[in-house]
């Protein structure tokens, strides 16, 4: 009974943080959801319809179809990351993180709540971009489960990344550095718009150290059934990275880095 109470309490705390996060990004949906949808719609129109029409098929698919998985995953990555980094940093900046720190909520519950919020936003935006893609293409989904699983794991991974970024951030500038100078280049170079088979050997090899390449390709496999890399390797790598970032986040929370004096 006592154990049940314990877990029930944790569950209530998790749901409170998760609900707070959902309400946060849905209240300001014009800032959080709409921009990604508009941007990717422009990508579909410009790269898919206008320029893509002049590009031949890629890995057996029309160029517009080929870029859909990358664009969906780009929305997932960017939004899951920015949701957690901005929400957690704001709570640090305005000190209302103290509401949680003084409560009996264990660190893993706090982390789960924020990550779940980031995953939710990532999936909402990913879903919205997917709906837009349906308007421009008539893609037949190869494996819904692989697609959903990769989406979920990627969103989890980048939510954790956003959390760690927020812990170390000391200013609002610090929360935009990683998305601008790390995430965006890695996403663009991660095979969103091209197959790495088009690259010279050296660049192909270099591309393999980009973790986003694995995610984009695994998602592309789920959607189209084609991939530049083995799908099992992609799953394994994302899983390992998630475990590493969870361990790192919990260690930072336990030591109070960036949030306690």
């Amino acid at each position, binding site marked *: 009974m006592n154990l049940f109470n314990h877990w029930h309490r944790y569950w209530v*705390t998790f749901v*409170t943080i998760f609900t707070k996060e959902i309400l946060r990004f849905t209240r300001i949906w014009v800032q959080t959801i709409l921009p990604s949808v508009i941007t990717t719609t422009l990508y579909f129109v410009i790269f898919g319809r206008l320029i893509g029409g002049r590009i031949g098929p890629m890995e057996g698919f029309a160029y517009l179809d080929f870029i859909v998985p990358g664009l969906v995953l780009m929305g997932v990555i960017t939004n899951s990351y920015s949701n957690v980094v901005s929400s957690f940093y704001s709570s640090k900046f305005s000190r209302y993180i103290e509401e949680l*720190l003084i409560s009996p909520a264990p660190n893993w519950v706090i982390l789960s709540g924020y990550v779940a919020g980031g995953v939710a936003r990532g999936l909402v935006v990913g879903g919205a971009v997917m709906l837009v893609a349906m308007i421009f293409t008539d893609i037949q989904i190869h494996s819904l489960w692989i697609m959903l699983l990769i989406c979920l794991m990627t969103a989890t991974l980048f939510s954790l990344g956003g959390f760690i970024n927020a812990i170390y951030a000391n200013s609002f500038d610090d929360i935009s550095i990683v998305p601008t100078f790390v995430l965006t280049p890695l996403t663009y170079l991660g095979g969103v718009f091209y197959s790495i088979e088009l690259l010279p050997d050296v660049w192909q090899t270099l591309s393999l150290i980009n973790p986003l390449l694995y995610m984009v390709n695994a998602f592309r496999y789920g959607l189209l059934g084609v991939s530049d890399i083995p799908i099992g390797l992609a799953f394994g790598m994302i899983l390992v990275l998630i475990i590493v970032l969870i361990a790192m986040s919990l260690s930072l929370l336990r030591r109070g880095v960036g949030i306690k*004096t």
Partner: protein
Amino acid sequence: MPALAVQQLTKTYKGGFQALKGIDLSVEQGDFFALLGPNGAGKSTFIGIVASLVNKTAGSVNVFGHDLDRDPEGVKSCIGLVPQEFNFNLFLPVFEVVLNQAGYYGIPRREAKVRAERSLRQLDLWDRRDTEMRKLSGGLKRRLMIARALVHQPRLLILDEPTAGVDIEIRRSMWSFLRKLNAEGTTIILTTHYLEEAESLCRNIAIINRGEIAERTSVAALLNTLHTETFVLNLKGRVSELPELGGFVLQHLDDCTLEVEMNRDHTINGLFDALSRNGIEVISLRNKQNRLERLFLEMVDRRVADTGDGA
């Protein structure tokens, strides 16, 4: 079992500054306890450690039998904190702030709503429940911090400068509320710069200075150590020449106002008798300085003199 028992509590910040130097302190259940000290004495560090906002360097903290190292969740469940600085999400409505806090303590939503309403009503904030935080005045925000801290019904309420910057009316209503809360069994620890507040509310007191407990006693015992008291008298009519009154030292502030210093073995009745005999009529009187404030200043001055600082 004390409400709070702290042993050898030490905090050394990066760079070597020692904010707390092995503090031992115990607060009994049901007490209304004041923690006083000048700025930078270590009060907020002390409270921060007890409330899990600051990592301690050494020592132990025990709250209602729960050890902070072994059972932090038990400690946190017992404590409600009203911090010195506002720490709200300014874009949330009042009700949601309190509701979320209840949720963080694991209180199911249905019950949390009932408790949040009760807390807000207790602090006269229910009518403001839909107002966004940023639209509240400073005084209302202070009251909301108390409502938020009480939503999980803590056994120990810690208030760090709870009435800083609020007007007299709100301050008095907060005092009255805190007295009632304490009478109902909640142990209260507060820090304040308004020593009148400590004198009026608290039974026991600790003065912390330079990271050490300089004094730990009851407010009554502390006030008994005062040898003299000074009053300011408003007179009916002008008094140009001051009479000699044994045991009382009189001084003109202006023609219609006197300052009188008297030993504690004299009474105010005696003062009035002596003034009446000399044809001086008094309209009103007040303490020149809050008594606790005077003691506090004496104590800090003495410490500075002892350590040779301030030279």
